[in-house]
């Protein structure tokens, strides 16, 4: 279990975890909700793929790796929609846009 | 493993306390959803994935959303009563 693939997997895992932890802490440090909303992006488009690469390197191509990739892909696809919907509600509640503005 | 279970249990306890300590029902629903997620984490950590699945469906999605629906409906009915007494919507 000490081949180069295992080492690379550990490096990717460490980097991905570091990105996710840093983003969560940065979101906590921001004061305004609009600023916090931006920290969802690095988690889903940088941290999650790094973790997926680590899992694929560790497991090799197979059903497990495929399911890991599917989960991370769904995560990366759904996060922008969630961010946009949340930003819309924030703006509506702040009175910045009308309720019937296109979503 | 023991450390993971301990951290998960602590988080469940902390978020549960926050749910109880939150007064506004709208805010409580959001924290309740987070509490369901924490319980899911705990159940998978103690290797009970089927329990975690049911908890995910009920605790993290269904109950908070039904709470939100109920609050919204009650608010709307109250507002309707003030304006037009006896108005029966739908």
């Amino acid at each position, binding site marked *: 279990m000490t081949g180069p693939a295992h080492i690379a997997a*550990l490096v990717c895992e460490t980097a991905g*975890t570091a990105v*996710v*932890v840093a*983003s*969560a802490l940065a*979101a*906590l440090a921001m004061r305004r*909700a609009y600023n*916090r*909303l931006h920290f969802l992006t690095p*988690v*889903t488009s940088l*941290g*999650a793929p790094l*973790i997926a690469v680590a899992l694929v390197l560790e*497991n090799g191509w197979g059903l*497990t790796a495929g*399911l*890991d990739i*599917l*989960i991370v892909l*769904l*995560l990366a696809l*759904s*996060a922008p*929609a*969630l*961010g946009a*919907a*949340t930003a*819309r*509600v924030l703006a*509506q509640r702040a009175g910045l846009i009308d*309720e019937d503005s296109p979503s | 493993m023991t450390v*993971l279970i301990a*951290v998960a249990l602590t*988080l469940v306890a*902390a978020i549960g306390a*926050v749910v109880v300590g939150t007064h506004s029902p709208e*805010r409580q629903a*959001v*924290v309740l*959803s*987070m509490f369901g*997620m*924490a319980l*899911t984490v705990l159940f*998978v950590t103690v*290797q009970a*994935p089927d329990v*975690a*699945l049911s908890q*995910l*469906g009920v605790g*993290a*999605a269904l109950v*908070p*959303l039904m709470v939100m629906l109920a609050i919204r409906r009650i608010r709307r009915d109250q*507002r309707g009563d003030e304006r037009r007494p006896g108005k029966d919507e739908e």
Partner: protein
Amino acid sequence: MNAWLIGALALLAGAFAPAALLTARGEPTDRLIGLEIGGVVVVLFLLLLIQGLGQPSYLIVPLVTVLVSFAGTLVFTRLLAPTADER
């Protein structure tokens, strides 16, 4: 404790706890952002935990978590939007 479980522990203590703290303060919409970050972090935590436990059959749990948290948060944004007679 292998490397995957240590990574999972780091995610749980370092990323899920801040997200939970975000859901504990402020307006309902502010808390919603914490819920979104928490949902993503839970999925990644479960991926690492399942790898560390060596139980790939558990992977159905993070898969369902992605779908449930996506649908749930979208419905939350619908219900938290102000209604027409509130303004």
